[in-house]
């Protein structure tokens, strides 16, 4: 091999690469400017759970344990208690309420079975996905972290409208 043929081969290779690069330039960009620009998530996105309350601010959960029973990774822990006070005074909507409601996000696989199992529509998946913590123990979220009235929603996402076409890995490029 001579020096000249080397130069020709290298130039060919560079041109071949640049051809691909240049052909991508006019196409839509895939890079998202997170966290400067909120990420758009689908309406059915399964993020951190939300425990809901009714219109009077009473917890909907009656601690029936069905979510814990449905959970395949056994990450939900509940302790039920009875609250015989009248509706106005008590915490939950019903006489029975969850004194302890923990979800271990170290175990949760976000399958959504708990949401399907819930007979009272008390638990749903929210959109919070920023669950990283510095300490593994902090992955255990208590009722205070999960309640819709207490959970802080991140500013780093926006939920797509149902009509909106959201980017996804399934999208044809």
């Amino acid at each position: 091999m001579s020096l000249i043929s080397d130069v020709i081969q290298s130039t060919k290779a560079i041109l071949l690469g640049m051809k691909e690069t240049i052909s991508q330039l006019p196409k839509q960009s895939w890079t998202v400017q997170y966290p400067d620009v909120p990420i758009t998530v689908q309406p059915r996105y399964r993020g951190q759970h939300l425990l809901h309350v009714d219109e009077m601010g009473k917890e909907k959960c009656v601690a029936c344990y069905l979510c814990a029973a449905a959970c395949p990774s056994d990450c939900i822990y509940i302790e039920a208690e009875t609250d015989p006070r009248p509706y106005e005074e008590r915490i939950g909507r019903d006489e029975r309420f969850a004194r302890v409601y923990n979800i271990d996000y170290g175990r949760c696989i976000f399958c959504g079975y708990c949401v399907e199992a819930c007979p009272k529509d008390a638990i749903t998946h929210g959109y919070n996905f920023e669950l990283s913590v510095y300490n593994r123990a902090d992955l255990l979220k208590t009722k205070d972290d999960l309640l819709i009235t207490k959970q802080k929603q991140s500013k780093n996402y926006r939920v797509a409208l149902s009509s909106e076409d959201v980017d996804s890995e399934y999208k044809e490029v």
Partner: protein
Amino acid sequence: MSTELIKVTINGQEFAVEKGARLIDVCREQAFNIPSFCYYQDLALQASCRMCLVRIEKMPKLQTSCTITCTDGMIVTTQSAEIEKAQRAMGEFLLANHPLDCPVCDRGGECELQEMIFDWGDVEERFVESKNATPEKFLSPIVANDPQRCILCKRCTRVCDEWMGEDAIEAGNRGVNTVIGTYGGWLDCSQCGNCIEVCPTGTLLDGTYRHETRPWELDQTISTDTYSSDGMQLSIGSRGGRVHRIVARDRYVDGLNGEFLDVKARFGHGFVNHEERIKTPLIRYKKGGKLIPTTWDEAIHFVTNKFKESGNNVGVVASPRLTNESIFTLKRFAKEVVGSENYTISDVEDLAPFFNNLSVPLATHKEIRHAKTILLIGGEPEEEQTFTAKQIRQAVRNGGAKLIIVHDTPIRLTAQASQFIHVNPKSLDAFALAFADKSDKTILSKIGAAQSEIDDLLKLIGESEGDFIIMFGRDLSAEAQAVLANVAGNFASEKRRVLLHPLPLYNNSVGANDMMAGRKSLSDVLINSTALLIGGSLSKPSALTDGFLSRKDFIVVQEMFETATTEFADVVLPAASFAETDGTFTNNTGFVQRVRQAVEPVHQAKADWIITSMIAREMGVDFGYNFSAPAAFRTLADSIDAYAGLRYPHLKDESKPVQVKHPIAGKKDLSKETDALRRGVEAMPETNEKIIGTPKVGHKLHRLTTMTSKTAQFHLLAHGNPKPENLLVSPLVQFNLDGTPRVEEKAEAASAGDRISDVKRTAGVTLDGKV
């Protein structure tokens, strides 16, 4: 039921069944599942739920299989479109007024209606009318009632009537207005809770387990009752180291008692996780000082040194509430470690005279149920041996047995008796003498019964065939028990089998008697020793008041709670309760039954036998148990004849309990005992005044701490002598409907520290009296 076989065709298959068998039982035995709510084996027939419909040829309509007795050549269809339609319609009607609040209902997950509707019901509801909403209410602090969930199967009313004989719960009104209710809106009974157990829906619920958890979350551990000597099998529902409830449901446990439990067995588990449990070993370094928490190492070391200082003159006392393993280890400690014969049990009565003079075998509960004649002398089985009482009642009601009661008090069972000999107060010994020695006519005046009554009794026994069971209570003296146990064999004949049934007070009285064979009396042990090792507490208050304990150099007590005995203790070691240990109890029919560990020992508690062997090891003797309960039981079984060859695997199946064969002494010369008995009887004052008035059963049971006016049952929080406060820590106090405690309860409570005055509404009254 005869053993004659007849042919029945079910769904095209022919089966040979016993004549007189019930069709529903036959179908279920042959694996044709028939749904039913109201049918309950061992209870009167009801046929109100109409779920068990089958088609029988030549009968015009569908028939309820629970009321049909099999006849020869019967052709039955259990599955067809017609039957399924009828059953689905029934399910739909049952749900017409049943609230679908399963997520809130405590029965959800083990509800028979829920399961049945899933299998047979029409899950789609077509009724649009609103349901009759009725609020939930409490029938008593421990029985919650939601009338709307009721499907009127009337199991509860039948159980209350047939098992307990109480009729506290009954159906009222008619037709669609029928409700299950109580007299005066209040459940005035012994609070046994069997109505809760048999209820197929969430109508009657455990008030102490209200909204606590879910059945599938609970670990079910099969164990044995720690209160009554019947050895009832139960299932401890625990979760996360906490005992939540105790039930005897068929689906969890299949013991000798079926689904029967009494108030103590079912609700008296609050002590296991009670906050006043002793948490760490405690040492009293100076007499009269305080008990100071310490470590196990320090405590065991301290105990060892003190025992050595006392010259190994250590007396050992075991409580009959402990497991066989613990009692036997305490005995080994006395014999092998300190080399003394000073060991005893702290039972209220000595069972040795009974078991040493046994002339016939012990009766099992099944034999009591099917006995033909039952003689009850003294005792109060309805309070103390509740399952025996239930078997007696059913033997009379359902089995046609003849019950003869000899008693100084007209106890409630006398309503069932075919003969009741009402003797003078405390003159049962005289009756025993008359029973054993018919020649003596002079003692009749002491008994206060006519000769004709005793003649009638002997005639009735003489005419009886089948099983004849003699039971006697603790009212009789030791001599009288020895004599009666020995003469029982005289009544046996070819047509008649005689069986004996003791009525001891504590769960393991019989086991303690077996383990501690060759023991001394409690007072001898207390007098002869300078130091004491007490497992459990002393149950005889006199032993404490006599001042024996305060004169001892050194006392070690293994106990769960601070009791009157621990007040004298120099070292208190925290013991595990029955729910935290593995072991065995021996019941009053000689069944050895397993106690299984349901939860980890709370705080630093250890099982009694582990504590004893730790002290032994520190003193240089290794029992070789390696802290394994099976090894402890093996040692025990190898050294006690009646238990020879038994191992834990033999006791695995609670439906087939193993009976230890107590040696049958045969006819003995008991002239010494008879003479002593005669002297005792002659010293009896003559009286004509009899006790009138039937004591109400359960009159103290809601307290869970006392059983009858006669018997202080200090078993719940502190076996032995609880502090007065502890007596009221478990106030399942009767409340009026407005939420205030009943007047007499209030007065008693006030006198004992007024712990309950602030307890308000019945809802959620837990065992420690908090709302």
